[in-house]
């Protein structure tokens, strides 16, 4: 199960914004910085190049290390959602703190994505 896992840091950046992992057709994006427009640009680029490879069904955005998000974060999550929905995929968010949760609630994003406690919970449920 865990042996087809690849861990990819965007190491060419001054500071990496996320760690990308693909396991069992699930793209896990562990955010390591605040999810704003600056970060969204990089997440979008990297995740789309991974999605383009064709073996990704679901996406999990993990907020364990990200305690801030603004409307640019909503944009990048919606954008990825639109990519996987056509092939029956889903998008989930995990380890969401109170601050980020508020943004999701206000934006109405929970109507189309699911929230789980942990990455493990999300993988089981998706």
């Amino acid at each position, binding site marked *: 199960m865990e042996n087809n896992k690849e861990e990819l840091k965007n190491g060419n950046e001054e500071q990496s914004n996320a760690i990308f992992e693909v396991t069992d057709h699930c793209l896990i994006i562990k955010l390591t*910085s*605040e999810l*704003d*427009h600056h970060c969204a640009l990089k997440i979008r680029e990297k995740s789309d190049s991974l999605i383009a490879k064709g073996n990704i069904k679901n996406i999990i955005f993990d907020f364990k290390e990200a305690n*801030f998000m603004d*409307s*640019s974060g909503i*944009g990048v999550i919606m954008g990825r959602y639109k990519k996987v929905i056509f092939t029956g995929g889903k998008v989930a968010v995990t380890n969401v703190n109170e601050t980020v949760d*508020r943004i999701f609630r206000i*934006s109405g994003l929970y109507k189309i994505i699911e929230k789980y406690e942990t990455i493990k919970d999300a993988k089981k449920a998706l």
Partner: protein
Amino acid sequence: MSETNEITLEFDSKSKNESFARMVVAAFVSSLDPTIEEIADIKTAVSEAVTNCIIHGYENEEGKITLKCKLDKNKLFIEIMDKGKGIENIKQAMEPLYTSKPELERSGMGFAFMEAFMDKLEVLSTPGAGTTILMEKEIQSAASKS
């Protein structure tokens, strides 16, 4: 010591300065000992306004953004200004979910968030000359709450 404090920050229109602007405002209000939620509200509103200057005002070209903050007792005033392209139709721009740049995956929620998280929001804009966002928020400092 007088009860007002004021700063003016001018910075380059670059996406990496979004987090910088948030940190500056958070540092500026820290003397009032705001709650985590209040800081998050302010950081989000600042982030939205600054991002808009970069994406919409200057359309990712070079430019300068001005951020003014003023504390008068426990009231925070924020002004965020660009000298970019300006907004033709402010009413339409402020509608929730409206965005002129869907191709950039904008959600159109920027102004809605500024309104939700601050007590007051005012948008001044002149097409071709630039945009100024005025926001206000009262900080219910930890002291006055307990």
